[in-house]
């Protein structure tokens, strides 16, 4: 269970998160939606411990990570897998080496076990035989899939996806979403995903949370969000233009 209470963050005089609170159930897929520049990625960076809040708490199975540093925070991070917006694959390593990296450096597994796991992970994302290629030699969709394989190869309990389908065509968006759904069913991890993909995310999410002006405007099952009477939520999921912005 991930519990966020009163998370507040400002950059200079610009408030980004304002007493944001959210509960993420264990084993669920929670998708955070909201306008670009609305603080979704900032929120995600707090969850993975890359940013520290000005106020508020983030509890991972009851442990407050906002005060943790060094080894204690790393202990929590060992349970994480993260898929970054651009993939964040290491340019100088092949796809195989990228996926093997956390197994070799984080889990320190023996080479034969690493080989077996990497081939399995690349197979799960449909990239058998592509391991020798460098990230610069493959397409954007393939890079996202390698990034997903790298995030999941250590079998993490919690996986964070930061806009995993941004910049991809509709076919690839569906492919990646179904891949995530399929892997979630098999591996049973807790997923927190930041996404703009409306309405596709309603097919894969257990919970959708709308972030607006630094707070969760509404959170609930996809059907409830789609039927929401909240003007902010309705405007966002219908893609209505900004001229009658609600405050």
């Amino acid at each position, binding site marked *: 269970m991930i519990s966020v209470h009163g998370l507040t963050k400002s950059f200079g005089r610009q408030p980004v998160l304002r007493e944001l609170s959210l509960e993420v159930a264990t084993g669920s897929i929670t998708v955070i939606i909201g306008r670009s520049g609305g603080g979704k990625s900032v929120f995600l960076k707090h969850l993975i411990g890359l940013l520290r809040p000005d106020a508020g708490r983030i509890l991972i199975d009851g442990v407050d990570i906002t005060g943790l540093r060094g080894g204690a925070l790393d202990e929590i*991070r060992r349970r994480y897998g*993260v898929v*970054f917006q651009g993939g*964040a*694959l*290491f*340019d100088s390593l092949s796809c195989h080496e990228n996926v093997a990296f*956390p197994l070799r450096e*984080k889990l320190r597994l023996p080479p034969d076990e690493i080989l077996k796991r990497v081939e399995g992970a690349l197979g799960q994302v449909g990239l058998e035989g592509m391991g020798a290629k460098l990230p610069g030699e493959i397409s954007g969709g393939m890079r996202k899939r390698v990034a997903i394989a790298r995030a999941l190869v250590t079998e993490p309990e919690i996986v964070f996806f930061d806009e995993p389908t941004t910049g991809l065509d509709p076919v690839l968006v569906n492919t990646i979403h179904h891949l995530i759904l399929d892997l979630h069913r098999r591996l049973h991890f807790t997923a927190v995903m930041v996404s703009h993909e409306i309405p596709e995310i309603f097919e894969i999410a257990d919970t959708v949370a709308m972030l607006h002006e630094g707070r969760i405007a509404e959170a609930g099952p996809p059907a409830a969000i789609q039927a929401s009477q909240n003007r902010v939520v309705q405007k966002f999921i219908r893609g209505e233009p900004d001229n009658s912005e609600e405050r």
Partner: protein
Amino acid sequence: MPERPLAPTLRPFDAVGGWTIALLDSLGRFGTFFAEALGAVVTPPFKLRAFIDRVDYIGYRSLLIILLTGTFTGMVLGLQIYLTLVRFGSEAFLGPAVALSIIRELGPVLAALMITGRAGSALTAEIGIMRITEQIDALTVMALNPMRYLVAPSILAGLVTFPLLTAIFDVVGIFGGYLVGVKLLGLSPGTYFGEMQTFVDLNDIMTGFWKSLSFGVIVTWVCTYKGFHVGHGAEGVARATTQAVVLSSVLILVWDYFMGSILQ
């Protein structure tokens, strides 16, 4: 509570105060970064593969530029010193003059400046791109210390490669002086090298060694720091790279003066 605007007479003090705080803040971060890097250098696990990669990146790939600049520096020195010494009938001292200039001063400084231009800038750009493409964040969330993977191997490689490249610079520089003094201007080889053995001692060589060692730390420290604290996008990387080269070059010259004063 809204802040009251400052009286015009107080604004310069406010600006100087703000600037001083910003300077102290960045100096503090610069120092903390070095302390963290040093911690990663001296504590296991050591990343041998990353270290070898950095030795290749900073050292081996700088070899050609060191050979070229070393040779021509020696040739220029040979010519200019000869033209000066010949006025006093002291051209026999060309060998030691070239050797002492290169070993004590020009070798460490010019080699460090050349490596900064070639490898230091590339180091900043590489780490900067890793920062803006979230590769450093990826290491962090894997519970792996980026200092151990990116900074510590670079500083260690600087400690190894700078003295080696300086030694190569010294040798080819002395050879460049030999080409001009002996082959072009007709000085005897025995005079060139014989007088060198008389005047150059271990203390001179150690002076150059300590300088090159400290330059290796300064350049890799500055360049990795600038890469780690890069701004946004391509412009941020470009700015960080320029700052890294300028700051490294200035620090090399400033530190050279202090080292020269200490190691007389």
